[in-house]
């Protein structure tokens, strides 16, 4: 659905996005993680044909970004939920959606049907004629999502969809994105909410002007940290450590009574280590795999680029 190759954007002397290469498959949820100013919004804006690229290529469903005729075709295919909700406060939820339905060239019948469907789904049908200015932030965000969906796009771009929302509203929005995922929509999310990214995204890219890593959340952790095994022993002594070192793990750390091993193939190597520790007189309390989590992984990747 999205093919990006060496995409670069410069604003004068400043490089906002540098040499991005990635792809997003149809039906996939792809998340772009990165600190403020990493180029996430610039990337979305380029892919939505809102701003031009400086160099490189990107295709959305076979259409080339930066090509005048293709730009209109791309904008018909996509729905955008920007970081700023951007609704017309004087107009009602219905009027906001009707306006965008017209701009997306939906027929009157489709517009009416879709507006009713989305407003009912988002529990806003009873409030359809109230000015949006009377709505809470969460309600406004729901209307903004409905606006992006009004023409039934194949591809959805979310730029910080839960930023500034209270936990309850954020959950409603997250659940809705998960529903869209189930419906088979291709979704591209910019976020710096790591928990959200882990829950929603099939694959994650870590961006800091350059794309530092791309993979599934689990693979990302493994790639960054390697596979780590924790063996908690009742008491650690030199004999046990010597036995462990004899098997040459990739990395060995000791924290209190825990031995943390980085291994190439834990399933194959774990039994050998356990056997050696027991033979050296160690009493094992438990053996477990260490999952650092996406947050630690993200922070490590970002830190390594500084």
């Amino acid at each position: 659905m999205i093919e990006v190759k060496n995409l670069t954007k410069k604003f004068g002397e400043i490089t906002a996005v540098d040499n991005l290469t990635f792809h997003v498959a149809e039906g996939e949820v792809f998340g772009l993680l990165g600190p403020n100013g990493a180029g996430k919004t610039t990337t979305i804006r380029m892919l939505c044909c809102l701003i031009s690229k400086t160099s490189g290529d990107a295709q959305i469903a076979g259409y080339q970004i930066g090509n005048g005729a293709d730009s209109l075709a791309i904008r018909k295919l996509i729905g955008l939920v920007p970081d700023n909700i951007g609704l017309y406060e004087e107009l009602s939820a219905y009027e906001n959606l009707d306006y965008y339905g017209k701009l997306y060239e939906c027929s009157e019948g489709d517009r009416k049907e879709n507006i009713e469907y989305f407003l009912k789904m988002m529990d806003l049908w009873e409030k359809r004629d109230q000015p949006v200015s009377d709505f809470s932030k969460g309600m406004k965000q729901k209307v903004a999502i409905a606006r992006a969906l009004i023409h039934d796009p194949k591809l959805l771009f979310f730029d910080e969809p839960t930023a500034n929302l209270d936990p309850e509203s954020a959950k409603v929005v997250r659940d809705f994105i998960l529903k869209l995922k189930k419906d088979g929509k291709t979704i591209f999310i910019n976020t710096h909410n790591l928990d959200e990214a882990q829950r929603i995204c099939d694959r994650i890219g870590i961006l800091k002007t350059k794309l530092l890593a791309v993979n599934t959340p689990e693979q990302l952790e493994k790639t960054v940290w390697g596979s780590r095994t924790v063996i908690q022993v009742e008491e650690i002594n030199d004999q046990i450590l010597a036995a462990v070192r004899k098997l040459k793990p990739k990395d060995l750390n000791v924290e209190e009574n825990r031995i943390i091993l980085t291994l190439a193939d834990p399933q194959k190597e774990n039994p050998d280590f356990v056997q050696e520790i027991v033979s050296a007189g160690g009493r094992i309390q438990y053996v477990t795999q260490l999952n650092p989590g996406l947050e630690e992984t993200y922070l490590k990747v970002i830190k390594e680029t500084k």
Partner: protein
Amino acid sequence: MRLSKAWTVASKDFKTFTKRKSILYSIIYFEVIVSICVPFIIRFIASKPSGAAILPTFINAFSFLYVIGASLLPVGIASYSLIGEKVQKSLEPLLATPTTDEEILAGKSIAAFLPAICANCVGALIFIVLVDLFTYSTLKYIYFPNWDIVIVLFLLAPLSCILSVGYNVLISSRANDVRTAQQLGTLIILPFGAVYFLSEFNVLTLTTNNMLIMAAVLVVIDVIVFYLVKATFQREEILTKWK
């Protein structure tokens, strides 16, 4: 450019204006003052012994108020139309729709142009009827309609309105709030106000020829402003430089 798209953008703005009473009132106040109050001043002048001699100069000068009106009335609408989008941060989702920059710009221009011109025409109709009613006994002939009012309403007023809309789009691209945009936007009436006062003090006579020359100058300025606006109203410029 698809006019239906431009009309969709304009229709949304019309709907917004009906809910923004301040914009409606600013149009109504101007038209009430010029179309109803000014004819009573003319009636007062007509009642003077020298009324018949000086009335045409005064009426012509007062008619020019509709040129000023055509440049003043779009200020509130145009500035709100664009700054409103800026303040509500609605430009990004709007620009993400399959609508071209030209269609959005045309829609915004129609939204500012049409109400101003329509209000001007309705006001002018009342003005014409009242002036004829109040001056007939003094002048002994029906003053309006004449070529001068036709040039004012159908040439100078639309041209000044177009200029005002363009100028206000340029102002809106730099201003951050509606009030600042309106204050700067109102400056557009200065040259037209100068012409009005010069004619009131008989320094400049608003003859048919002079008004046609003015129209020709306005056409040239409108074309220049149009190209400036077109260069300013670019998707990328709007998203990255309009703060």
